[in-house]
Every structure is written in structure tokens, then in C-alpha cells.
């Protein structure tokens, strides 16, 4: 079996009477020759690494080697635990866990690329928030990772998933879109609703440029991961309410591809435009390169 589009995916789910996650698992077993139990175990290993990054990041207030990030996950965690977050506990916890993961990444901690290191915070943020607030067991979260990877698989093969190739819309945009569909499937939505949430989330990040200050995966990447979790929850809620994307998901992905192709090189991870070339962005870059020369 091979899935090349979201339309094919929804058809396969209907034909096989399976969820999106189950289709991914079936396809992986078929392609790799491994049994499903082994594949589930491999995915579980990744989930556990994600949890370790969340835990170490939430407890660590130290700065990244660059000195331009670090310590914000602890702030968020303290704030959320007071129960006063405007966005509630689902999004509040997701933001904290996402921040923790992306800060761990900046500190050279161990993370799981989902689908890249730069967008590694969004899925763990959303999944471990559902674990904490809704009591989803690890085995459910593992199935959620199969859902996410199926959605990401289609996006990656039809468009792109790296900032260097297609801008941040391809990186944080894809991860957020994958997370939105995953929330819907975990909450019992249909495959069509999950794909619809994927479209809604991706549409709201279309055109987002990749403009990392000093070329580092820190500013603005970490906070884009954090805010990506809230977009994922909003898109999931819209879809579960029955609100439909007027543009079908496959066409949204195609639009993302075209926008990425038309995006100038200065806005695709080269640190030659956007926030990277603001007054402050340039100053940070100069300070870091002075440090390099003084080594």
C-alpha cells in the first residue's frame, strides 16, 4: 500500500475501516517487513525520549550555549501551575511542554525530530498535555504519533518540511498541522475531520518565513513552536465543531509548496532577512561572532 494524498488517505481509512494511525502502522509493516509489535515498540521508544526532554526542559532554567534562549519553560510552568492561564490548562500545559522541548534542543539535549529538530516542540507539547489533562495512556499517545507521522508523510512527500526548503510554514507549519489532526483523531474525530484540522492549521501558518537570528534554532523558533500548540488546539476544536476548510487539505499543501518555491532565499533559513536582519537581530549576530573570534 502507498498513500500519496490526503484524499487517498481518507479513502483508505474508509475501505479498511481503520484510523489514520492504524493505516500508517499497517503501511509501515508492509513496507519494512517488520511486525507491528516491533514498530509500535520503536515508536514508544521515541515517545519516551520526548517525555524525557519535556521533563528535563521543565526543570532546567539554564541558558543555551548562545545565551539567547533558556529559562522560559520554568517561567511558564510556574505561571500555569497557578491556574490563572487565560488559554486554560490544555493549551497552557502544551505551551510549557513545547517550550521545554525546544529549549532542551537549543541546549544540545536529546530530542526527537518531529519532523525536524527546529519543530520538535509542538507534538510532544500537545501529546503530553492530553496525557496530563485527559488521562490518555502512553499507548494512545504512541498511536497519536502514528497519526502524526501519516499526516506528515503526505505533507513531506507532496511539499516540504524544512525551513531551508520552504520557510517556517514548512517546518513549524507542518508540525502544527500534524498535531492538529492528531488531536482530532485522539479525541475520537473521523479521519476526514482530522485531515480537515490539518488543513485549517496549515492555512493559518501559510507564508510564514524562516528567519532565525544569527542562524540559530532559537529566536524565533522556540516561541513559534510554543504558539504552534495553541493553533493546533484551535484548529482541532474548529474541526470537531464541524467547521470545514473551504480549501481541501491536498490543495492547501500544494499552495504551501508554491508559496515556499516563490519565497526568496533570504527568508529560507539563511538568516539574511526578516527578524534576523532587525537591528537587534544583527546586534546579537555581531556579539556571537565576536565571541567566536576571541576564542
Amino acid at each position, binding site marked *: 500500500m*502507498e498513500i*500519496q494524498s490526503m484524499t487517498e488517505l481518507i479513502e483508505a481509512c474508509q475501505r479498511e475501516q481503520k484510523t489514520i494511525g492504524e493505516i*500508517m*502502522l499497517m503501511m*509501515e509493516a508492509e*513496507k*519494512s517487513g517488520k511486525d507491528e509489535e516491533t*514498530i509500535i515498540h*520503536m*515508536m514508544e*521508544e*521515541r515517545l519516551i*525520549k520526548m517525555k524525557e526532554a519535556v521533563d528535563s526542559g521543565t526543570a532546567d532554567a539554564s541558558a*543555551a*550555549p*548562545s545565551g539567547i534562549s533558556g529559562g522560559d519553560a520554568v517561567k511558564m510552568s510556574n505561571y500555569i501551575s497557578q491556574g490563572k492561564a487565560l488559554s486554560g490548562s490544555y493549551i497552557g500545559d502544551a505551551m510549557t511542554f513545547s517550550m521545554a522541548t525546544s529549549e*532542551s*534542543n*537549543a*541546549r*544540545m*539535549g*536529546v*530530542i*526527537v*525530530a*518531529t*519532523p*525536524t*529538530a*527546529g519543530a*520538535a516542540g509542538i*507534538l510532544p507539547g500537545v501529546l503530553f498535555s492530553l496525557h496530563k489533562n485527559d488521562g490518555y495512556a502512553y499507548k494512545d499517545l504512541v498511536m497519536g*504519533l*502514528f497519526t*502524526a*507521522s*501519516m499526516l*506528515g*508523510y503526505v505533507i*513531506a*512527500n507532496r511539499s516540504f*518540511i*524544512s525551513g*531551508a*526548503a520552504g520557510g517556517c510554514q514548512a517546518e513549524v507549519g507542518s508540525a502544527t498541522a*500534524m498535531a492538529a489532526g492528531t488531536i482530532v483523531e485522539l479525541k475520537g474525530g473521523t479521519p476526514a475531520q482530522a485531515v480537515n484540522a490539518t488543513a485549517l492549521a496549515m492555512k493559518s501558518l501559510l507564508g510564514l518565513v524562516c528567519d532565525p537570528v*544569527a*542562524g*540559530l*534554532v*532559537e529566536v524565533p523558533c522556540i516561541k513559534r513552536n510554543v504558539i504552534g500548540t495553541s493553533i493546533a488546539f484551535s484548529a482541532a476544536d474548529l474541526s470537531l465543531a464541524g467547521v470545514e476548510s473551504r480549501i481541501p487539505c491536498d490543495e492547501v499543501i500544494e499552495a504551501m509548496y508554491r508559496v515556499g518555491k516563490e519565497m526568496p532565499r533570504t527568508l529560507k533559513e539563511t538568516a539574511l532577512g526578516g527578524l534576523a536582519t532587525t537591528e537587534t537581530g544583527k546586534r546579537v549576530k555581531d556579539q*556571537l561572532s565576536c*565571541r*567566536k573570534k576571541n576564542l
Partner: protein
Amino acid sequence: MEFQSCFDIIGPIMVGPSSSHTAGVVSIGKFIHEWIGGCPEKADIVFYDSFAETYQGHGTDKALLGGLLGMDTDDSRIKHSLEWAKESGMQYEFDFEDSCIQFDHPNTTIVTAKRGGCTVKVGGASIGGGLSKIFMINDEMVDIRLSTDEDLAALVKQYHQELTINQK
């Protein structure tokens, strides 16, 4: 279809911060480690282009030394590999150049490593998503694709034989 597996999307498990500037570079170092059969006594490393510009913030230097020391992509000791290198008596030197004439890619390095009587010069490029490529061994152009969950020892053994036969 470039992506073939759910683990191409969820994975690799790696030390941050960048799949191209960190994870892929560990594999290049590890390839050299396997090629010379252990930690080099001496390594001369040239970073080109984007690696030369941003190696410090991405820990590209630590990633490469970690690989040379035999560490895997998800080894949390990579963060401290400069200290580990000292401890294992490995001498190293970094040089920085604008662009690499042998291979046109922004994320490129050439490493000359020495262990016992064996010296090897290896060119590697990290091409994204944790994937990398060895493009040169001892001035001979090659094309060896490395992924983070590759059995590098087996891969090295295969190419070692091929190149030795070619050189005869």
C-alpha cells in the same frame, strides 16, 4: 517519494539543536571513527560555508568530535565532547573556509584523521533531516549516503574493501 517510513517523520532521536548542523555531522565523524578503527590521535578539521559561520551556536564542532570519538547521534555526552576529546588524548584543530571547491554544499567539512600508521582524509556534507553524505575519501570522489540509524561499521567495511581493490 523521498520519505518512506513513519520514522523519517518522527525521528531521528538526536541531540539538538539542528538535524543538519548537528545530527548529520555526528554520522560523518562516526564514519571516520569506524574507517580508522577507533578514536583518532589527531584530527585536522576544516569547516566550510554555513558550518564555518554557525558552528558554535549549533555545536557542529562538538557533534563532529563526538562522532570521531565513536558517539551516536543521540549520545548526551556530545554536549561535552571537547572535554571527552581531551580526556581520550585526541588532538584536534579546526580551520574555517568560505567554500569548498571539492563539493558544492553549504554544510561541508573535510577531516584528516590519523590513528597509528593510518591516515585518512574524508569529505562529508550534511544534507538535511539528519541525512549526510561522504563525498570524498583520500582525494577519491565517492557517494556514500549516511542516515542516523545506519550500521556504519558494516557500511565502512564494504567501502573499505571496494576502495582498496580500486587502488590496487
